[in-house]
């Protein structure tokens, strides 16, 4: 702040009690209770976010997904959903999707797209077809016609085989040789009347005869070998014939049924193609579905993991009613499986098995063609989900992946289902910090979420906006089944909205906080037997909420009142001032005074921040203290080196300190110590300061004032007590009723301070003094400070000179 001439500083003014709280103005809204108010959706005062939403929902290009950010509890999801619902209703209903068996490669199920509503019809049609086949196939294969043809084939081949053996048998018998069945095969031996000649009898035969028999057996053996070796070929031929018969029979049984089922889907090429594949598979694998007479073959379904007809069932992944518009899906638990679908398994004989009917849809499937709402924090904290979401958006298709294989949990055979093309608008919800962090560490964020919808925390407190918020309050009460609120109750809720916004000129849009307040007010109304919620109910709700959360505040105040924590609220003291701090714990904030002290002596020109030295002070606090050095350097003894050593400390502070809201209080303590002029202890101070001495706005002004007020009131209000706040914070004042009453009665005061000179004058009772030429006026506080600093410099000079002389003497 540049000095513009010898202007006497303005005397600090007490903030009129009327400005300590701004009452709601509902004069423009005629209603007795909120039951009479027209409803309104949750998007009041969100023009910027609304524009972003409109843009994001209309742009149909890749990457233009939405990231909605705003304060926690703003219920952005509800507000966005209401916007999306209007848009979704007018958009075409997206396709249905089903998974079907891939007969050529069962590990890769096929995805088929159908018009909306047709998936269920397809499923029902195929189920009926299967039911019909279950009856038709076995019956046709049990028919006499089939058996007759089958028997004919068998007899043909048996005859062919039998003829060979019969001829051999005949030839062998004619030569006195018998064919024998051994445990492992066949053999030949000389025989008489069908009985093998005893060995001794055979050995007694003349050698020529024996030789003759052996030769005959040798010839027959070759024939036997030839016949037996032809058996597999005959058997193959027979099986081929039987297979052809089975195929023809199956085709006869299934053709008409399949043609009837396919008729309803003739215009859908993918479905028609699947039905054709199904027809071929049925014909090729008919043995799976009918009871076979062959030894070793099983009846249908027996011993198999599932009914063989299951391969023809349809797994409806997603289906929608025609004309239902685009879907809006909110996934609250976006695990990888819940997001992109999953493949389930079932235990079968100790092993995990799966098939295409165990593919389950994820939120992406359900939202395909519409909107998917996700909580950003949830999706980034779920393993694999964030990467899968980006991958899906980049590829434009949903590929179901098995999380178990990612982490090596199972090595069992799994599926690789056809990816499903996806066109979805993803809406992520999160707080601002998360968005900015993601934007900083994940460069892909901007590739996929190009539209930012930033919800306002609050809106200007105009009469129109108060009326709008009143209608929103009516909606909240209605949606939650609460009593209606009368005018005064609505007014108090609006005023609380301003208090929540920390600004008398704004209204908080954190709907969840208002909802909590209304629910508790409704409870109080019920306890009091009120038909509608009245102002006292809201007041009681506020008080109850504070009381429940204020145990730590009460303990802190107790320690001050018991003088464990030393805080004076009367008298004056050099180098000591009451600073004010705010503590926020579990969503509840309260202020409490803290004693700040300062000691000075000649030194090297440093202001020591003890909090910083012991690493309890944060960077903002340290910055504030360093600004004090700048202030001193620019205001005092400009022609003299700064020869000050000052130490500043928050007394009895055992935790971390951050923020610069106490820097003005620290400066007052420093100036008091330098001038050796005491500061009033019946006043507390908040506000940051810059190097020019201008007092700047801080946060939590209401809590700070109330914190000091509570201590003063407990000790007895003297009428001189009060709080110095930055002038810029006056607009934020929404103080408690008891504070306002005390101020109105002149028993407490809030002072609006613009400069350090104003503040020090109020705290010391001495004018600060404005520099005239090169000096401050004689007797002014600033002159005292400057003189003290020059004295310190002189001490330093003398010390240095004496030191040099002592050095020469040595």
């Amino acid at each position, binding site marked *: 702040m540049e000095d513009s001439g010898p202007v006497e500083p303005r005397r600090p003014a007490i903030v009129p009690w009327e400005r300590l709280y701004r009452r709601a103005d509902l004069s423009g809204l005629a209603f007795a209770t909120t039951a009479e108010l027209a409803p309104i959706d949750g998007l009041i005062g969100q023009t910027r976010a609304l524009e972003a939403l409109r843009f994001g929902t209309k742009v149909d290009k890749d990457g233009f997904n939405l990231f909605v950010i705003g304060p926690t509890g703003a219920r952005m999801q509800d507000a966005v959903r209401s916007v999306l619902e209007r848009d979704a209703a007018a958009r075409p209903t997206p396709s249905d999707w089903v998974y079907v068996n891939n007969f050529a490669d069962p590990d890769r199920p096929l995805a088929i797209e159908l018009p909306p509503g047709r998936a269920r019809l397809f499923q029902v049609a195929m189920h009926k077809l299967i039911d019909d086949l279950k009856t038709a196939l076995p019956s046709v294969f*049990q028919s*006499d016609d089939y*058996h*007759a043809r089958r*028997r004919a084939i*068998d*007899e043909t081949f*048996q005859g062919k*085989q*039998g003829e*060979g*053996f*019969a001829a*051999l*048998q005949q030839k062998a018998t004619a030569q006195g040789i*018998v*064919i*024998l*069945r*051994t*445990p*492992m*095969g*066949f*053999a030949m*031996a*000389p*025989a008489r009347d*069908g*009985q*093998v*000649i*005893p*060995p001794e009898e*055979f*050995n007694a035969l003349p050698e020529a005869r024996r030789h003759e028999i*052996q030769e005959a*057996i040798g010839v027959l*053996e070759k024939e*036997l*070998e030839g*016949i*037996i070796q032809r*058996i597999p070929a005959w058997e193959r031929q027979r099986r081929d014939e039987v297979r052809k018969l089975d195929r023809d029979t199956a085709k006869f049984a299934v053709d008409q049924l399949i043609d009837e089922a396919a008729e309803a889907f003739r215009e859908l090429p993918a479905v028609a193609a699947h039905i054709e594949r199904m027809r071929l598979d049925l014909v090729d694998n008919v043995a799976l579905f009918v009871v076979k*007479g*062959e*030894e*070793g073959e099983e009846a249908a379904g027996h011993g198999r993991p599932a009914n063989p007809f299951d391969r023809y069932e349809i797994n409806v992944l997603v289906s929608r009613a025609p004309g239902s518009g685009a879907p809006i899906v909110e996934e609250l638990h976006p695990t990888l499986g819940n997001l992109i679908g999953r493949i389930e398994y079932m235990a079968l004989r100790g092993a995990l098995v799966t098939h295409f009917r165990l593919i389950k849809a994820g939120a992406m499937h359900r939202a395909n063609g519409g909107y998917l709402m996700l909580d950003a924090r949830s999706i980034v904290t779920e393993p694999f989900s964030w990467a899968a979401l980006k991958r899906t958006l980049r590829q434009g298709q949903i590929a179901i992946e098995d999380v178990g294989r990612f982490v090596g949990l199972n090595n069992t055979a799994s599926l690789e289902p056809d990816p499903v093309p996806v066109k979805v608008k993803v809406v992520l919800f999160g707080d601002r910090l998360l968005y900015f962090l993601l934007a900083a560490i994940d460069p892909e964020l901007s590739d996929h979420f190009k539209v930012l919808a930033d919800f306002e925390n609050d809106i200007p407190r105009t009469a129109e906006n108060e009326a709008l918020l009143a209608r929103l309050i009516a909606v909240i009460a209605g949606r939650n089944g609460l009593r209606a609120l009368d005018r005064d109750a609505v007014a108090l809720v609006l005023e609380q909205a301003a208090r929540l916004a920390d600004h008398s000129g704004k209204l908080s849009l954190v709907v969840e906080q208002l909802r909590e307040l209304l629910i508790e007010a409704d409870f109080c109304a019920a306890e009091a037997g009120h038909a509608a919620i009245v102002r006292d109910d809201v007041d009681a709700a506020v008080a109850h909420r504070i009381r429940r959360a204020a145990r730590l505040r009460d303990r802190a105040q107790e320690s001050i009142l018991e003088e464990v924590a030393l805080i004076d609220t009367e008298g004056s003291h050099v180098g000591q001032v009451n600073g004010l701090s705010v503590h926020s714990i579990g969503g509840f904030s309260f202020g409490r005074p803290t004693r700040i002290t300062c000691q000075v002596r000649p030194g090297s020109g440093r202001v020591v921040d003890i909090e910083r030295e012991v690493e309890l002070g944060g960077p903002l606090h340290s910055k504030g203290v360093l600004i004090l050095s700048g202030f001193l350097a620019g205001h005092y003894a400009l022609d003299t080196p700064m020869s000050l050593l000052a130490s500043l400390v928050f007394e009895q502070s055992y935790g971390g300190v951050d923020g610069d809201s106490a820097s003005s209080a620290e400066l007052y303590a420093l100036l008091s110590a330098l001038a050796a002029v005491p500061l009033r202890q019946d006043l507390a101070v908040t506000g940051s300061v810059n190097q020019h001495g201008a007092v700047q706005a801080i946060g939590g002004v209401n809590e700070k004032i109330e914190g000091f007020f509570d201590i003063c009131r407990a000790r007895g209000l003297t009428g001189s007590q009060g709080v110095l706040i930055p002038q810029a914070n006056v607009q934020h004042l929404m103080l408690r009723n008891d504070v306002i009453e005390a101020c109105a009665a002149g028993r407490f005061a809030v002072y609006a301070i613009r400069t350090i000179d104003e503040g020090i004058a109020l705290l010391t009772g001495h004018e600060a003094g404005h520099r005239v030429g090169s000096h401050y006026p004689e007797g002014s506080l600033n002159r005292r400070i400057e003189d003290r600093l020059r004295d310190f410099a002189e001490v330093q000079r003398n010390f240095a000179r004496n030191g040099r002389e002592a050095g020469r003497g040595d």
Partner: protein
Amino acid sequence: MQSQGRSFKRLVVGLDVGPSDTSLHLAAELAERLRLDLLGLMVEDGNLRALAAMPFAREFRPLGGGWRPIDEQTLSHEQILARRRVERAFAEAVKRFAHRCRLEVVQGRAAELLAAISRTDDIVMISEPSNPAERATQPLSTLLDSAFRSAAAVMVVPPKIARWHGPVLAIAASPVDLAVAAAAEIAGALGEEVRIIDARSVVDSPAAHHLAAKPTLASSSECLVVMTRGAHGDTTALAIAARRGIPVLVIEPPGEAARVGEPTATGGRTRSRVP
């Protein structure tokens, strides 16, 4: 099971070195449902020992086994293995069997043994081999002749059974044909319906032959045919079984059963096992 003078107490099933699951399964199920004792009869061909003693004896093993010399020691070992296979198959088939069951291993010629071992209260089950080689080495007609010569009723079983459930069909040559009562008794035990065909009603053709040739005859879903021997030719049962793929039970007329009388001794070595 008792049926107007014919009382069946035992079902005898012939088992060779590679018993078929079909015949064993059918035998076990029928015995259980008709409350009959079950006798598995494994016949070891006595000719094989004589063969093994021949200096040039060798056997041809299908499925790539080729020709291998055969001697008494090898044969003995393989017969033991074959017995164990049959024992396992028999035990598996009768594991839930509530009545008496027994497996006997006898040596001799199957045809003679069947005739000798069977009794008037037996049903002897003769399965038609599906393997042509076995049909050639163990002619079914010889077996059937032997069985028919015995006092027992004979059940002819085709290599593949088309139906396991359905009505029991009796082919009646006369109003008092025992086949009707036997069919009714069996149908009752099986929980099936009984149907009767009057053999005289089929013009110009004996009913049984007609049934064998015309699969579309009225009763087309039967699971068993019962007929009396003598009313039809001996090959009729075989033809019906082959054509229709179902077992055919041939019972002896009352006089024949009494005339055949008690079985003759076989003289074969016998080993028995009760599971």
